[in-house]
């Protein structure tokens, strides 16, 4: 026993891998439907007039964002946590019955929340705050799920053999703490059933309805402090955690610089939270807050690029791997999209640029080059790396991975280029005046002009979804169609071999 390598227990990691794929398909499918609804409004009633209430754009939109954020991404984060955590802390989940129980409970309660969210959003039960649409009963369940995640992190840390915390663990801890703080404060609300009136009535109206503790400008400020940093601690921090583990593992290269990882980690922690104000430029929040948001957004380039450069330099001298391994392709392109997206964001946060970009599709484009190019690619790469080790089988098809990579890359490029053009076109048309000082265009002119770009975006999204289905198929075939390896693969990646 002494001389054998530790056998890790991937029971919980597997469960979350399944939901990553399932909810990814659901979320992206809804996204594609939404894209085509904007290009071809007839799609709104695709299931007939009777079901139009549940298939129209506005009812589906929160389902898309929440399915990809809290379904696909969060599942991906947890799948990797239950895999990476054990490995870098050098302790198996099987060693603690308690942590195994917590992990399974975490998954089961998460499933309950997913079902509750889907049902409630279809019915139009929403608080309307972006990425915080859930009403109070679901919020409470989310908090419980999150606490279980925390217990798992700190429990595993508590029984670790490797005393020094690896970089990925820093980022997982930050994800846990950041989202906990943001979610709690942004969802402060009072259930309306608590109110009583002079006639002595109470429990009036829907029991699930609540009202925000903040009003107007304050509510906006708290919401975008949350909304922006949910991106930070959901789309950046945990994804960086993944790449710090999976890129060195897959490439066999050591992280380029420990000091650079220190600088970018603590820099990111300090700077990110200030930048939320860039969602509120030219709004009614005080000017100094807007300026702070703008300035810190630009400073944010430093820690973001610090991580990305650290990753790219990790590949120093080993660039032939990018050509040889589809998995390395995904991670290197993911890092590149991360750099691209974290340069684009600060540009949009400059006040004069924001005056044109805000409220337009350019913002939508920005979100998607980050989420499709960085988050999506990195989570799929992580699952591709984990699958052979978790299921003890080689990846089913390497050539399928390569085609998937190119199809999805094309999809992302079509997506963000069309949205750039759409956004800037619309922003410029809104502000155009004729020679007499009158508005040059009525609003509908600025809508109809976008039709070709909306159509191209729909195609881009569809290509990405097709690639994702190829990914799902590849993983499915990996776990079911090939003979089981004798033991867990230890060293070289199946791709490198």
């Amino acid at each position, binding site marked *: 026993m002494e001389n054998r390598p530790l056998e890790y227990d991937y029971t919980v990691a597997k469960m979350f891998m399944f939901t990553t794929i399932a909810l990814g398909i659901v979320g992206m499918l809804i996204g594609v439907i939404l894209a085509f609804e904007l290009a071809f409004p007839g799609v709104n009633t695709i299931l007939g007039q009777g079901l139009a209430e549940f298939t129209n754009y506005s009812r589906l939109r929160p389902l898309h964002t929440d399915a990809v954020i809290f379904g696909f991404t969060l599942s991906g984060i947890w799948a990797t946590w239950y895999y990476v955590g054990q490995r870098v802390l050098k302790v198996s989940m099987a060693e603690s019955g308690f942590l195994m129980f917590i992990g399974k409970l975490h998954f089961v309660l998460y499933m309950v929340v997913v079902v509750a969210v889907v049902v409630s959003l279809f019915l139009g039960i929403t608080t*309307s705050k972006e990425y915080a649409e859930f009403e109070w009963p679901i919020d409470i369940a989310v908090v419980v799920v999150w606490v279980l995640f925390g217990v798992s992190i700190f429990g595993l840390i508590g029984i670790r053999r490797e005393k020094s915390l690896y970089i990925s663990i820093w980022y997982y801890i930050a994800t846990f703490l950041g989202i906990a703080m943001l979610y709690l404060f942004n969802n402060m609300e009072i259930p309306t059933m608590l109110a009583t009136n002079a006639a002595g009535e109470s429990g009036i109206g829907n029991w699930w309805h609540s009202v925000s503790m903040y009003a107007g400008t304050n509510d906006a400020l708290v919401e975008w402090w949350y909304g922006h940093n949910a991106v930070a601690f959901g789309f950046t921090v945990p994804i960086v955690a993944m790449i710090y583990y999976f890129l060195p593992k897959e490439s066999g290269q050591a992280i380029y610089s420990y000091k650079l990882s220190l600088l970018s980690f603590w820099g990111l922690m300090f700077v990110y939270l200030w930048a939320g104000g860039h969602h509120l430029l030219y709004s009614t929040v005080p000017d100094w807050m807007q300026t702070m948001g703008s300035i810190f957004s630009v400073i944010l380039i430093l820690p973001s690029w610090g991580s990305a450069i650290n990753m790219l330099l990790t590949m120093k001298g080993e660039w032939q791997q990018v050509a040889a391994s589809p998995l390395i392709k995904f991670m290197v392109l993911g890092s590149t999209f991360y750099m691209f997206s974290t340069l684009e964001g600060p540009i949009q946060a400059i006040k004069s640029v924001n005056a044109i970009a805000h409220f337009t599709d350019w913002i939508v484009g920005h979100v998607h080059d980050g989420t499709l190019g960085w988050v999506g690619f990195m989570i799929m790469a992580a699952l591709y790396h984990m699958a052979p080790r978790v299921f003890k089988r080689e990846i089913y098809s390497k050539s399928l991975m390569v085609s998937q990579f190119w199809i999805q890359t094309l999809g992302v490029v079509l997506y963000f280029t069309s949205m750039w053009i759409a956004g800037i076109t619309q922003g410029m048309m809104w502000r155009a005046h004729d020679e007499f000082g009158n508005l040059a265009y009525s*609003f509908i002119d600025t809508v109809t002009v976008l039709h070709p770009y909306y159509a191209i975006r729909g195609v881009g999204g569809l290509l990405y979804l097709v690639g994702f289905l190829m990914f799902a198929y590849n993983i499915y075939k990996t776990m079911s169609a090939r003979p089981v390896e004798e033991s867990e693969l230890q060293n070289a990646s199946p791709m490198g071999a």
Partner: protein
Amino acid sequence: MFHWLEKHPFFFAVGIFVTIAFAGLVEILPNFAQASRPVIGTAPYSTLELAGRHVYIKNSCNACHSQLVRPFKSETDRYGHYSLSGEYAYDRPFLWGSKRTGPDLMRVGNYRTTDWHENHMKSPSGVVPGSIMPAYTWMFKNTADINTAYAEQLTVSQFFSTPYNKPVPMKDGSTKIVKMGASTAEANALALAEAKVIAADMKDQDVKDAVANGQIPEIVALIAYMNSLK
């Protein structure tokens, strides 16, 4: 120091928390009380208007329509006076939105009528050729939830002292009193009285019949809310 922190998870986590909590404290807290004061002319929503606001939220209208006029000539030309912080004092939640797939609605009550909304919600592209907005026909059939709107009025008046049944100063120097029912029955009666005024300007016979029978379709509440946005 960093090497030490990396071996002491508790202090590491405390370090992260302090680093990330700092920005929120500095940016959000100082202005909190100031930003929530209403400007003159801003009154709380009536029961029917609030029920309409719930219809607006239920259908995520804010996914495509903003309610925030920025201080640019092109926006004030198109939508009216730029937004003031105090105008949102009774907006819980705020509905600024983040995307203008359709036009801003901050002051839509100034330039659209009940009749226009009725036609538009039935067939957006019939009223605005080229519009990509879907029709919201179910709003003509679903019944608005007056009780929940009333419960919200009670909640905000109890927890946040929102001035219902109290004089609120208006721009012309007069005062306005927004009534809130003392009981659920009275709240429904107030909403129905308001709904009758809206329905009188509408053409849809089913809606008119429903209101005459004491039912309030969602569309009536929504239009009351739209008309209140000024």
